[in-house]
């Protein structure tokens, strides 16, 4: 189920297409297309288990689009830049390994930035449905709530040690999700920290 999104502050002609697939079977093929530089596969293929929320993914897309418009991409194109923008450090290869599609990826987030009118909702939907073998899921927070591997995400952003530091017993309990409210709050806080780390990446 492809969705089209217009991100605030981006020019009116820029449209972002997003789609989430679970139980993907041909991740290796998709990765191969990226490595081969196949122009038909101009997508950001992201390991959805590394995505905490829609905001997390869209913030990376926003930075990538903005950097693309200002012609200061650090990687090959705007799509690889989205993957790179998820990273808290400047190592592009590491960013692809951590956040990009791998041979074993089962949950996949696809993002595509369209600036020309010949890329339409229909063309993106048709192309993705023929080439991605997986079950379509809506691009929303409840999907990411199921796919997100919070421990790996924490590790990737080096946020594992921060929570339990000052009150170990108390936080450990909360991490296990004592009440729903507290759990939501912690995810929110993790998201806040991740967005901050993504935003200050690249500045020395």
């Amino acid at each position, binding site marked *: 189920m492809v969705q089209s999104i217009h*991100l*605030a*502050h*981006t*020019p*009116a002609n820029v449209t972002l297409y997003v789609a989430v697939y679970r139980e993907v079977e041909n991740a290796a093929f998709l990765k191969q297309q990226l490595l081969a530089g196949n122009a038909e596969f101009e997508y950001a293929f992201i390991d959805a288990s590394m995505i905490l929320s829609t*905001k997390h993914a*869209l*913030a990376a897309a*926003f*930075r990538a689009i*903005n950097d693309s*418009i*200002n*012609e*200061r991409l650090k990687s090959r194109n705007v799509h690889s830049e989205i993957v790179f923008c998820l990273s808290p450090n400047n190592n592009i290869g590491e960013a692809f390994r951590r956040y990009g599609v791998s041979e074993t990826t089962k949950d996949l987030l696809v993002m595509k930035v369209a600036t020309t009118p010949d890329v339409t909702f229909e063309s993106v939907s048709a192309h993705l449905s023929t080439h991605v073998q997986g079950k379509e899921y809506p691009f929303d927070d409840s999907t990411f709530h199921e796919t997100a591997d919070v421990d790996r995400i924490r590790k990737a952003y080096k*946020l594992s040690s*921060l*929570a339990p*530091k*000052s*009150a170990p017993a*108390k*936080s450990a309990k*909360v991490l296990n999700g004592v009440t729903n409210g*507290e759990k939501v709050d*912690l995810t929110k*806080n*993790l998201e*806040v*920290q991740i*967005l*901050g*780390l993504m*935003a*200050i990446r690249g*500045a020395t």
Partner: protein
Amino acid sequence: MTSPTNTPPREKEHFLPYPFTETQPPPELITQGAEALLYRTHFLTPSTPAALKARPSKPYRHPTLDARLTKQRVLAEARVLVKLSALASDPANEVKVPAVLSLEWDASRKVKGLTGEQRGARGTPGGGAWLLMEWIDGKSVKDLLREWDLWLKEPGSTVPADEVEAQEEAVKKLLRRIGRAVGAMHSKGAVVHGDLTSSNIMLRPPTNTSVQNGSAAMTDNENAKTERKLAVPPNLDGEIVLIDFGLATQSVQDEDRAVDLYVLERAFGSTHPRQEAWFDAEVLQSQDGYRGSFKGSNIVLKRLEDVRMRGRKKSMIG
């Protein structure tokens, strides 16, 4: 938008960096300081309000120096905010700050194919910098205390003595919470704010009422200006959120911490004469205030006495 050449130089449009020049609806200017302008806008979707702090480049500085200073300052602020937001993962956390959403430290780096107008209203080569932050609903402690003053001296209605006492206790409780928040920032955050004033301390209402209060906050400045009298005292519940870390530094020095308290003390005394007498006892000395907030607080408070004697600058250089 008129091009800058049509208007006299003094009436140039306010600096607004690209891409926010494209934003619909356009960002709304909230306030302007010496270094930055604050706009209200949104992030990703129009339903997520955000604060945009835009730092224009200073045309009187050498471009290289200007780019460096602007970058250093916007980054210092962002790093402090990210550092303090990490504390919020602790359930016992008492210091809340706005989340960093997005950041640009040099809007003109490697810009090709853009007209001067798109780069910013000034069209200068130095593009300036911007920081997009979470929007904090609610009112500043300054506005709340001013409202409280108005409520107290409302003519025509005599407030019963026990009601006054209850409201005074509510203010004192707020002051103690401010002391704790500053203490937590100093100790757990290892951050010195640099510009603590009652207008840089916000009170965010509980989430269920945030919608009403958030919209009310927009018209609040007008209310204060027209000296509208209040029939009911302002609600002093809510989360304390510290804002404006533009002058903040990462420091654990007792001297820096003491100066931070001194700045707050002086600013508070001149802004809120009616509550000034409570400041020392509630914000600083109370066990529920700064003194009780971390282990080394008594050393800082001891140092504050020295700072009061001599003033903010220890070394008289510069």
